[in-house]
Every structure is written in C-alpha cells, then in structure tokens.
C-alpha cells in the first residue's frame, strides 16, 4: 500500500475515550496525548483495561464513546494508510507456528506490501538473533525466541506508532537488554512507543512518561522517585469506587502486585 495519505504521527490524541461491554466498562473517559519520540509506560493491575486501550490505539477496536485522533485523522478516516504506520505486538504473538521464522516474516512483509522483503526478513532475523534458526518451524521455538521474532515482525514495516503488550515476557537477560536498546533506537527515530508492562525496574530508566490505568480510568504517574514507589503509591491512592456494585467489581479485579 503506497502511503498516499501522509498520516501525521507527531501526536496521537485520545479524547474522552470510553469502551464498555453492556454494563461492564473497560475504559472510562480516557484523555491522553502521546507525542513522537516518547516511550510511554502503560501500567496497571491485571484487568485494568491495558489491552483494551492498546486494541483501540491499533484501530482494531472502536471506542464506544469519544475519539482517537492520529494527527487530525480519526481511525476510520485513516484506514489502510493509517494501519501501515502502526505496529502492534499483542500478548498472543500473531505468528503461525507451522511456518518457519523466515516464512512468517516474509508473509507479513508481503501483506504490508514492502519492497525487498527477503532482505528485510534476513536483517530482522539477525536482529532477533535467530539467523541460525531462520528456517526452523516456529512451533519448536521457546517463548523467548517467539517473543523476539514477534517483535521483529511488529517492527518489520518501520511503524511510527509502536504498541507493545508485555514485550519482556519470557526474555532472558541478554534479550531484555537488546530489547531496551531497540526501544531507545525507536525513540531516537521519533516513534511513539506505548509499552504495557509489569517489569517496573527494567523499564524505569527507559520511560519518558508513565500512565496508570485502574478500573478503566487513566491517570499520569508523577516523575519523582523510582517508578516502583510511584506505582505503589498510585495503587494505594486510587479511591475505591463507591456503591455495592462498585465494591463487588473492585473485589473481582483486586489489584495484583507486579512480579518483581
């Protein structure tokens, strides 16, 4: 797809974005501006709505209220030209286990209409440190190897908006370091990186900003002190929702401590 429309990715704006399923609200009145060259940490307990928010940002899901703007464009106006600029690594890795690592990359490269697909795939495999296993089926890969491959698949088309859901899952120490430096490169290239994660200590030096989701509501985490302390404070601070229903819901999605 030739980028006939130049989508402006200096800012992505969420204004009053809500998403509800019947009487269950996943996101409520989220307002936030994401700017180019930022790595934004999306923190919060399980079930707080992090994945829902990433789904909305990726244009795969539509908000039930409010709007997401990419520059001046909304998701429906942007269409395919907009999708060409978005890379989304969800918790499930969006890989075909029956195909080899190279075939996976080449398939998605073709779908994105990229040029030099084989060369790009070779480079990506080298970056994922999987050159040796390039022609092995993905079903034989460990979680960490898959995670690395999936990350390279996500970044294959050089997206300007990078959405990563728990990208550190299953990575060994060396791979974690590699990922951190990869993210720094993306920031230098002027991408917007949104990172949903629980690995607070790991990402603390990396993040430009951290936002905190709880029970579908989004707030900024301040910038003073270590991230873990701020996160704990935010967890403790959030006012418990009022009303019997609210309490029941709060009990169901009891805040869980992130793994150290």
């Amino acid at each position: 797809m030739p980028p006939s429309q130049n989508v402006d990715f200096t800012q992505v704006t969420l204004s009053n974005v809500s998403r509800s399923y019947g009487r269950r609200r996943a996101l409520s009145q989220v307002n936030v501006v994401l700017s180019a060259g930022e790595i934004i940490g999306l923190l919060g307990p399980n079930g707080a709505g992090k994945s829902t928010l990433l789904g909305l940002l990726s244009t795969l899901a539509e908000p039930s209220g409010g709007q997401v703007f990419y520059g001046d464009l909304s998701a429906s106006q942007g269409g395919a030209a907009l999708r060409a600029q978005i890379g989304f690594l969800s918790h499930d890795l969006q890989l075909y286990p029956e195909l080899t690592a190279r075939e996976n990359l080449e398939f998605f490269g073709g779908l994105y209409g990229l040029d030099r697909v084989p060369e790009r795939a070779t480079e990506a495999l080298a970056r994922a440190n999987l050159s040796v296993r390039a022609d092995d089926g993905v079903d034989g890969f460990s979680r960490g190897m898959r995670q690395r491959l999936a990350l390279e698949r996500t970044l294959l088309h050089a997206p300007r908006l990078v959405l990563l859901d728990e990208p550190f899952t299953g990575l060994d120490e060396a791979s974690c370091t590699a990922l951190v430096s990869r993210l720094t490169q993306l920031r230098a290239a002027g991408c917007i990186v949104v990172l949903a994660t629980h690995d607070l200590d790991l990402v603390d030096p990396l993040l430009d900003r951290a936002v905190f989701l709880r029970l579908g509501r989004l707030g900024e985490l301040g910038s003073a002190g270590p991230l873990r302390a701020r996160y704990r404070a935010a967890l403790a601070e959030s006012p418990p929702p009022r009303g019997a229903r609210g309490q029941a819901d709060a009990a169901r999605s009891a805040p869980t401590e992130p793994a150290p």
Partner: protein
Amino acid sequence: MRRFFQVSWLVVRKDLRVESRNKEMLLTTLFFAVSCVLVFSFGFVRGGEALAGSASGVLWITIAFSGTLALGRAFERERHHDALRGLLLAPAERPAIYVGKLLGVLLLLAFVEALVVIMVAFLFRAPLFQHGWWLLTLLGLGTVGFASVGTLFSAMLLRTRSRAVLLPVLLYPVTIPVLIMGVSGTFALVQPEPDLALARLWASMLCFFDVVFLTLALWTFEPVMTE
C-alpha cells in the same frame, strides 16, 4: 486491483504451505466425509440397491457437513495465536483477506468433493459421471455459494464464545437454498431420464444466489470484523 489479488494470493499460499506441513485439515475433513458417506449408505442402501433418488441428497449433505467442519478449522488457525489480528492490521483491503481464505476453503472442498462423488457413484450406483460437466458445474456453483457464506460467518464468529455451536446454527438456514438447488439439480441429472433443461434452471438459480451471497459477504466483511 493487482494488490487485492496479491494479498489474496499471499493468504492462499500461506494456508497451502501450512496445510502441506501438517495436512490436518485435509485428512480430517476427508476422513469425516468418507465416514459420512458410509453412514448414509448403511441407512439408504438395502441389498445393494440404493433408495430411489437418495444419491443426490447424500452427496450434498456430506458436502455440507464436511464443509462445516473445514470452515470451523480454517479460522481456528487464525485464532490460535491471534494471527487474525495480524491479518486485519495489515494495510491491505480486508475483503482481499476474505477472498484468500475463501479460495483456500474452496480448494480443500474440491479435494473432498472429488472423493465423495466417486464414493457416492460407487456405493449408491448413481450415474453421476453420465453428465460429468453438468455435475461439475452444479458442484462448483453450489460450493461457492456455501463456502462464501461459511467463510464470512466462520470469520465473524471467531470473537464469540460459542462459535463451534453457532457456526452450523447460522450457516445452515442461510445456505439451505443453495443445498436445495444443488440436490434438485443433481437429482435431475441422475434420474433414469436425465432432464438437462431442469439442471440448467437450477444451475442458473445457483449462479444468482452466488452473486448475491458473494456481494453481501465482500460488502459486510470489513465492518463485521471491527471489534
């Protein structure tokens, strides 16, 4: 337009490659179709003589049953690692992805039908090859009608909880006309005095349904797949 078919071709080639590795869908569907025909032949063949007119019904019901099985599996592959999201995120026209999946299903069903036709001709002593080209036309048109709706429904049901149950529940009512036309057309061919004019009438009706179903499916695929 070139890009459209390029994307469809990529999806087909990917499915063929996966299938050539594990052959899961082909083998399970073929086996199911064979057992289906056998079960029907226990029911409808007495002392080597098939019940009059049963062959055309058995042929199409077997296709419908094994087609449903295949359709369910076809998208399970995309669901497994959330690969469907990867497909939908690609900056390709989404109907192209639908067409790719549809072609894959059609190819698989072509294999299944070849086997089923031979088995029915043999077990039910039906003169299916007497007007082979007409049979091929009816099978082709009927399968396109069935699979075009089936591929759309199977894709859209991926997000629902009880998709395994809901697929046949939705698919059969909508595709009954196609099955009726297929059965009636085939019956016209295999009766003692084949009625080609009637077969042509059913084939043209099938054509009509195919056009309507395909248009609707291509038109609704994009909005239906948005969460």
